């Protein structure tokens, strides 16, 4: 190939590229392929996802729901086999999100507007055995800790933490705040709530990790422990807080719940991308919907339809062209 020829080729190539770049935003050709949203195995996520799906349907998109594991789904989101995941919790999904965003194949669609609350939680009836709750300082009292103990942990109290995969720094927190408690990790959140149900039925002592939005705080009467409020410094600067030599001498952080998905959504379905990014909902709305499904036995689709009917002004704003 002569030099001239090569010049021509590259010129054509450059033209073609610039042409493509210039054309695509102008035409904004939306694909008719279905947008795949992932469903996980907890009610709140099913509701959020179905809300998004229904809204996108109203905007004329084709939707497909795919059942996928919360963490395993990233493989699908990166390869473009899956497109949108509506609930990634800052508190439990941070590592997976970071690892995935680093590949450049996935994208954060912004916060859902819901905030994850996670903290030590106890049933209401424990206030009798341990007066002064929910203030965390009473947990330092050995008598109070013993009220939460079992044969394996006595005389220390037993605190049932989340699965190790959730992180949460509870072992460190117990150490830093000098609490006479032993941290036992549940392997999965189903096990967490199975223990709560069991203890609640027997009005037996229990202290465990509960998160919201979830049906548990609606079903069981109880309160979150009030630890010193979380600040960024508490997790990074040992001098902060009551223990000058340790990190984590405070409560757990509130976390955003994010919408994430395949990075290709923006180009393939620009309108849908806009709608997904615009979607927000708050904790109270979601809590009410979860309760309707899990405790009143309504179907997810009924609850979603109700919300769609009541909030038409809101969602039609999100899909406005």
């Amino acid at each position, binding site marked *: 190939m002569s030099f001239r020829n090569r010049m021509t080729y590259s010129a054509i190539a450059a033209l073609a590229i610039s042409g493509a770049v210039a054309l695509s935003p102008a035409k904004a050709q939306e694909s*008719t*392929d*279905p*947008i*795949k949203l992932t*469903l996980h*195995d*907890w*009610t709140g996520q*099913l509701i959020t996802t179905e809300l998004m*799906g229904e809204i996108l*349907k109203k905007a004329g*998109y*084709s*939707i*497909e729901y*795919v*059942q*996928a*594991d919360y*963490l*395993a*789904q*990233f*493989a*699908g989101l*990166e*390869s473009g*086999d*899956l497109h949108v995941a509506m609930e990634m919790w800052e508190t439990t999904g941070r*590592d*997976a999100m970071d*690892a*995935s965003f680093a590949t450049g194949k996935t994208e954060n669609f912004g916060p859902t507007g819901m905030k994850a609350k996670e903290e030590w939680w106890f049933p209401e009836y424990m206030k009798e055995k341990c007066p002064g709750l929910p203030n965390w300082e009473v947990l330092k009292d050995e008598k109070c800790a013993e009220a939460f103990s*079992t*044969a*394996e942990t006595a005389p220390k109290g037993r605190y*049932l933490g989340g*699965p*190790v*995969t959730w992180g949460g720094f509870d072992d460190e927190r117990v150490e830093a705040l000098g609490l006479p408690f032993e941290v*036992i*990790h*549940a*392997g*999965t*959140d*189903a*096990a967490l*709530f*199975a*223990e709560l*149900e*069991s203890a609640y*039925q*027997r009005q*037996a002592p229990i202290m465990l990790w509960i998160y919201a939005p979830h*049906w548990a705080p609606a079903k069981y009467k109880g309160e979150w422990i009030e630890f010193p409020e979380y600040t960024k410094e508490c997790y990074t600067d040992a001098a902060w807080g009551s223990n000058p030599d340790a990190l984590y001498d405070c409560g757990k952080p509130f976390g955003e719940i994010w919408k994430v998905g395949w990075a290709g959504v923006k180009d393939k379905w620009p309108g849908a991308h806009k709608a997904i990014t615009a979607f927000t909902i708050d904790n109270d709305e979601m809590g009410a919907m979860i309760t309707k499904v*899990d405790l009143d036995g309504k179907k997810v689709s009924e609850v979603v339809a109700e919300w769609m009917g009541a909030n038409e002004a809101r969602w039609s704003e999100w899909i406005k062209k």
Partner: protein
Amino acid sequence: MATPAPQTLAGKPDREAAAPVMSAANIGWTAAIVVFVALWQFGGALKWAFDYPKAYAIPAQRWIGSSMKWLLNEASFGLFTFTDLTRFVAAVIDFPYRIVLSLLSTGFLSGQGSSAVQILPPLSWIAVIAIATLIGFHAGGRKLAILVAACFAFLAAFGQWTSAMVTLASILVAVPLGVILGLLLGIAAYRWPRFERALTPILDLMQTIPVFAYLVPILFLFGFGPTAAVVATLIYAMPPMTRIAALALRGVPSEIRDLGKMIGCTRRQMTWRVLVPSAKDSLMVGVNQVIMLSLNMVIIASMIGAGGLGFDVLAALRRLDIGAGLEAGIAIVVLAVALDRVSQAYARRTADAPAPAGAGLIARNPYTVASLAIVVVAALAGLAVPAVQTYPEALHVSTGPFFSDIVGWINVNFFDTLEALKNAVLLNVLVPFKRLLGGLPWAGVVVLLAFAGWRLGGARLALLVGVLSFLIAATGQWEKATITVYLCGISVIVAALIGIPVGILSAERERLWRWVQVVIDTLQTLPSFVYLMPAVMLFRVGDFTAMIAVVAYAVAPAIRYTALGLQKVDPQLIEAGRAMGCTPAQILTKIKLKLALPEILLGLNQTIMFALSMLVITSLVGTRDLGQEVYIALTKADTGRGLVAGLAVAFIAIIADRLIGAGAARSRKRLGLV
């Protein structure tokens, strides 16, 4: 022949020390154990022997992680990449799956997603039940037809239909693939011993590396969805078929083989016309295992996009709806029972008498014609009456809160008793055993295992066992591995103590055996999640609950193989024993159990494999073993970390398997069974 020591399990050296006869072999053992105990008790100064020095650790996680990345992103055969190849395989599997799924669940669609238009509806529930019943009748007569009809009617009545059809579709694709591939590999292994030697470790790895360890690469390679689930199911469910096929072909009596040679069979005829048909009974055990294991994967398959009943189980248990979880779980069992019994019946059925010549199309294919007629009639009727097409929701039955209430009642009334029982077992058995294993020096264990390998199987086995156990330590998995061995070891012992007697009891009692089969099929296919959550409510999270789950699952092969082995004992030998005046107890111990020993040992081997494969589940109730490590790696999408822990599990399995195998071979030789 020298008097061999009664060594069986390498993990029980105390029995050796107590052996009354001091032969040369025993002196060797005693010396090895004395050295080991000395190191363990007084070797405190040798820190490296207890904690593997970090500076010499093999960075296997990094190596595996980066080679995986290379495989996923760069590996290429020139014209196409490795990922292209796997995506092509996925497309090939996807095609039959789509057809079956369309037939059973979605109907034939034009377009995709929610904008798709249905061209043809799926088979109506009545048509599916009718066809299943006809198949049952064809395979095994009226009794089987009723059983199959009842199974499918259960699915409709309990509102499991939609999910069950999705699950059925993936099973109908995975099982035939698993059986065919497994059988072909088994035949190859039977023909070429060298191939078998290469294949066996791969089969072990396939069966014992926890699925979670290779889930992420599979998703990248095969795409997210039902196809990846089918591939994962195949990897997990196929090995028993291959193993059993090789064993079964080898077990064909030499008379039959000689007959085949005498009448001049070609090699192909010999395989397909002589060996496979005569090994049919044993092969059907393999088919049974493929069906059971495939259904066992339903939960994990649902995590990667297969949906269906597995998803229902998970979702129900996350909201602690024990009844709904149990209903969906039982639906899986019911599917398993229907599929298994039909396949067994087909295996037993003698060939049909050919239809008389000149008969019409209908007379020649009565079943096909009847099925087609039902499909058409039901589809037409379904257009007029929707209840024919889809089972009316108003007629769903449910156990509702019944089971939750039962568990609640037990919880309120018996928790303290159960807690006391649990604490007794935990404090007196589990915790001491865990401490004991945890305190052993890795260097001593490696040497002792290698010594056991040398005594039982010679230098090669010693090398294998020594290297594998060293690798576990060198990759930094030792501590978690000891917890794994402790949990699985205890569970296997308990499972064998329950399973072998039950197998012996039920082997000859036809009626009891039928019930036992239902129970073990249930245990093997009912997702452990269903009983794990009630177990957590009654026993809290921890090792005890994990042990219950492992035993419940691993007891099945112990029972199944024991019974199978006893049933296969030649009745003439028993008759001969009786004629010589043996008591029933003597017949059992001196004849039957001895002759059934190879099967019982295969059962024990499978019990260990099953126990190890439950590690994935036990990690969900808070154990701190290799299963947990694999699970954490999955949540961090760290392929290297997951596979290293997964391989450590597999190494434990292989060490146990090889040592038991060698011990069994020796004792068989001694008994004159070979």
